């Protein structure tokens, strides 16, 4: 199972691009990136999910971690999540705490 992330900072925004499968074996890598993003002190965390092919409960716990790690004022935007990934996130009620978007917001 493969999973890679890349993190870029642009002004007040950090973008973490997720590529592959976010599950129990890879969630630790995601959390490390979230730690970096939290330390950056930005206003917005964008999780680019165009290449995220699988999300398990361990991945969902990673999203909980991200929400709790980032300051309350930080908006978390999920970009280009697949229908199935979005379905999973909505099923567990996380959509109240994040924003879905088709493109990286300006």
């Amino acid at each position, binding site marked *: 199972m493969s999973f890679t992330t890349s993190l870029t900072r642009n002004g007040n925004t950090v973008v973490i691009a997720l590529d592959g499968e976010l599950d129990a074996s890879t969630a630790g890598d995601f959390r490390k990136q979230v730690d970096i993003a939290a330390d950056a002190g930005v206003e917005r965390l964008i999780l680019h999910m165009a290449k995220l092919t699988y999300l398990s*409960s361990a991945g969902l716990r990673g999203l909980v971690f991200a*929400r709790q790690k980032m300051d309350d004022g930080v908006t978390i935007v999920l970009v280009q999540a697949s229908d199935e990934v979005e379905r999973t996130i909505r099923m567990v009620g996380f959509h*109240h705490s994040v924003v879905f978007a088709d493109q990286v917001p300006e």
Partner: protein
Amino acid sequence: MFQLTLPATTGSLDKIVTFVADLARAGGLSAVRAGRLRLAVEELVTNSIMHGYGNSRGPWNEIMLEGCIEPSEIWLRVSEDSPPFDPTRHHTPQDLDKPLGERTPGGLGLFLAHQAVDRMTYTYSQGRNHVTVYIRRESLPAADPDNGAVPGERHWQ
């Protein structure tokens, strides 16, 4: 019949995922439904390893997977000998309406598993938990007029 027995450790998950993918492919599941079958099995197995066996887990414990492609659905059974636990009765978290900032970690895996498949059943017999998940085979290919069999079934005969 597909069958696989592996040590009850997280190191077995890759092989389990491959096993489920092979079964889904042989049964002609769409990518979405194959992903849901994988999610259900991965969550069930992970729960058994982490919570069923808990601190006593090790390679001496074994998890057995059995799968079968029926005309209208695929079933897959996870069997293991950790203490009795019925996941069909423990799958709805109480805090789904809470914002993420107030969530407690965990409790989502069995819920996802339950939601991912069409049915889930549980029995405890001969000292083992048996959890079976069922998922419909959608968009079945037309029956072969020569022998009446569904083409996808040939792979496992």
